[in-house]
């Protein structure tokens, strides 16, 4: 309780509150710009936070996360292009509503359901994260190793792409994490004689490269795309009839989004897809979906915003990112010398609760900013790509340099950007690469510690119930879909044979 109040008091600083307000506006701007999303925005702004104190820095990153996730709906509704991938399902009903002259109503519902979903998930975060941290407090290295492995195995399902390609990209990230001096044995690995590589490959330049510069190259290949833009008179709060129609959907999607967010590596995009599908499944008028159903917007937006709070549960309590943007925030925590994990709630409880309060505040702020400034933010979609992306390029390069004031990091960011672009072109998601790089070091350290603890008898891990539980979950995450598909094919073949 003391930590809860101390966290609230830590936020009671005019400068910090102004910073959060500015970051909310910045986050809405980032989310409203097609091509830029919460992950890219957080990665680009991470270097700007290095001189701030940790509470302010992480509050800014989290503010960007929450407000950009909401703002993706603005472009989804007005130009049928999701500002972030998490708002892709909002297009399905948002744009038809806008075409019917109800853009303000659609945006109003997006703002309300986003806020309600966000607040629901932050309340869950405040309750669940300390409990999860307490449960994990007695984890030994084998449990941590198995948990990290489970987190990495969840990469298989990221982005809806090929699971094999996702795991391959994740493994490549883990391999990159082995570059530098091995902390356990002090042996140099893959350094090629470069002193800059002794400390390993920094994850901030890699993130700036794979999320910022590779997106620049992707945008270059989409220059011919033109978008129809719907004008909007003013944003409207939902009517009583709209609330009556959607409150169940908002509650259901908030629950779904929070749960999906808690799963390691799964983020707002998956949450919004499931939230939308469930809204349609439970609707009394499913035939309206796709033609401008207000429940569709509520289902999608409540789910994607509630995933943000859910994603912060494993990030803060276990040090395993709950989403791609949470991975950037995790990197931010590490850059500021903070150790996410169970000890955060005992040794830095005030900090953890300050972050929770900041998230709660942001959810109210983006509602206000969204209502007051939606029309203005809608205009940012008019910024020409010929100006926007060169500016992103400048910010990427300066951001990559600023963290360690090293030109080597700039080359890493450029190389990561080009590699990331070709990965995306060949169907590999770049998110697993970034998460693999962050978790790789932890995975190896925990494996080494486990081997020491178990006297190099690795098979003893299977004799530890919790370790076994996480290893079984890992196997299910990796092979579940294959086994399920195989069983279904056999059943279908069997019934056809009969």
């Amino acid at each position, binding site marked *: 309780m003391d930590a809860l109040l101390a966290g609230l008091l830590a936020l009671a600083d005019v400068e910090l509150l102004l910073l959060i307000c500015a970051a909310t506006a910045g986050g809405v701007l980032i989310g409203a710009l097609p091509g830029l999303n919460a992950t890219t925005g957080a990665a680009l702004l991470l270097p700007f936070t*290095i001189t701030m104190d940790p509470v302010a820095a992480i509050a800014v990153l989290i503010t960007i996360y929450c407000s950009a996730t909401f703002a993706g709906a603005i472009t989804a509704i007005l130009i049928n292009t999701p500002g972030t991938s998490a708002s892709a399902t909002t297009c399905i009903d948002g744009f038809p509503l806008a075409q019917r002259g109800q853009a303000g109503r659609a945006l109003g519902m997006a703002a309300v359901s986003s806020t309600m979903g966000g607040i629901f998930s932050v309340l869950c975060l405040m309750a669940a994260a300390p409990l999860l941290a307490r449960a994990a407090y007695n984890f030994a290295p084998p449990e941590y190793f198995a948990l990290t492995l489970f987190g990495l195995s969840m990469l298989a399902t990221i982005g809806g792409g*090929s699971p*094999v390609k996702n795991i*391959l990209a994740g*493994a490549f990230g883990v391999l990159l994490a*082995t570059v530098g001096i091995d902390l356990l044995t002090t042996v140099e690995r893959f350094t090629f004689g470069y002193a800059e590589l002794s400390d390993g490959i920094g994850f901030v330049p890699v993130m700036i490269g794979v999320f910022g510069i590779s997106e620049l190259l992707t945008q270059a290949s989409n*220059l011919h795309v033109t978008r129809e833009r719907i004008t909007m008179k003013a944003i409207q709060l939902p009517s009583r009839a709209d609330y009556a129609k959607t409150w169940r959907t908002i509650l259901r999607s908030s629950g779904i989004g929070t749960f999906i967010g808690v799963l390691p590596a799964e983020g707002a995009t998956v949450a919004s897809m499931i939230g939308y599908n469930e809204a349609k499944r439970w609707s009394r008028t499913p035939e309206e979906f796709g033609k401008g159903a207000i429940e569709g917007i509520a289902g999608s937006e409540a789910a994607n915003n509630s995933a943000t709070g859910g994603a912060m549960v494993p990030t803060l309590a276990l040090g395993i990112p709950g989403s791609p943007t949470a991975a950037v925030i995790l990197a931010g925590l590490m850059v500021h010398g903070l150790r996410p994990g169970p000890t955060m709630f005992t040794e830095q409880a005030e900090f953890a609760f300050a972050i929770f309060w900041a998230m709660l505040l942001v959810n109210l702020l983006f509602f206000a900013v969204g209502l007051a400034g939606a029309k203005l933010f809608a205009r940012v979609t008019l910024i020409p790509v010929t100006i926007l992306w060169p500016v992103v390029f400048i910010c990427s390069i300066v951001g990559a340099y600023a963290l360690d*004031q090293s030109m080597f990091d700039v080359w890493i960011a450029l190389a990561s950007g080009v590699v990331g672009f070709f990965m995306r072109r060949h169907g590999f998601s770049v998110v697993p690469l970034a998460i693999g790089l962050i978790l790789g070091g932890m995975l190896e350290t925990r494996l080494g510690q486990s081997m020491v603890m178990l006297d190099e008898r690795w098979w003893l891990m299977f004799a530890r119930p919790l370790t076994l539980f996480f290893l079984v979950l890992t196997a299910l995450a990796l092979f579940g879909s294959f086994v399920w598909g195989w069983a279904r094919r056999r059943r279908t073949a069997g019934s056809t044979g009969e």
Partner: protein
Amino acid sequence: MTEPSAESAGRARLNRLLPPLAILAIAGIAYHLTTTFDRVPPILKRGIQPSDFPQLVIGLIAALSIWLLIRGRESAPRPLPSVVWVTMAVLLVFPILTAVDLFLALGVSAGALAACWGERRIPALLLVSVLIPVVVFLLFDLGFEIRFPRGLLTNLWYG
């Protein structure tokens, strides 16, 4: 009519085979490098040798690449527009220009990117090639106290 589809099938096959083969080649080189890592005496090895974990990961990468070689789906991504290659060329020239000055390189590259992407308005080109780099420089130098590498232009500021 058959010629384009044969060409397209050839491209699809190349697209399926090229990434796993490239990854296998990288994995092979990486594995060779792991064999050159120093080994530590058993008393100091703290559970695993420095090469054990990378080799485990490389093994996984190789296995998954072979899976992709055998079971990967064939698809032909549309050819890259020339503007993408021009953009990459700008990214390639950027490091060379940094030898003169980082912010000169940023201004020239950002301006070149905007021009290559079709921007023809002089104020817009000046915005991305002059104003934005200057604002970013001042923000980081004065606001965050970040020192940038000395060069032709930054020397004017640093003295």
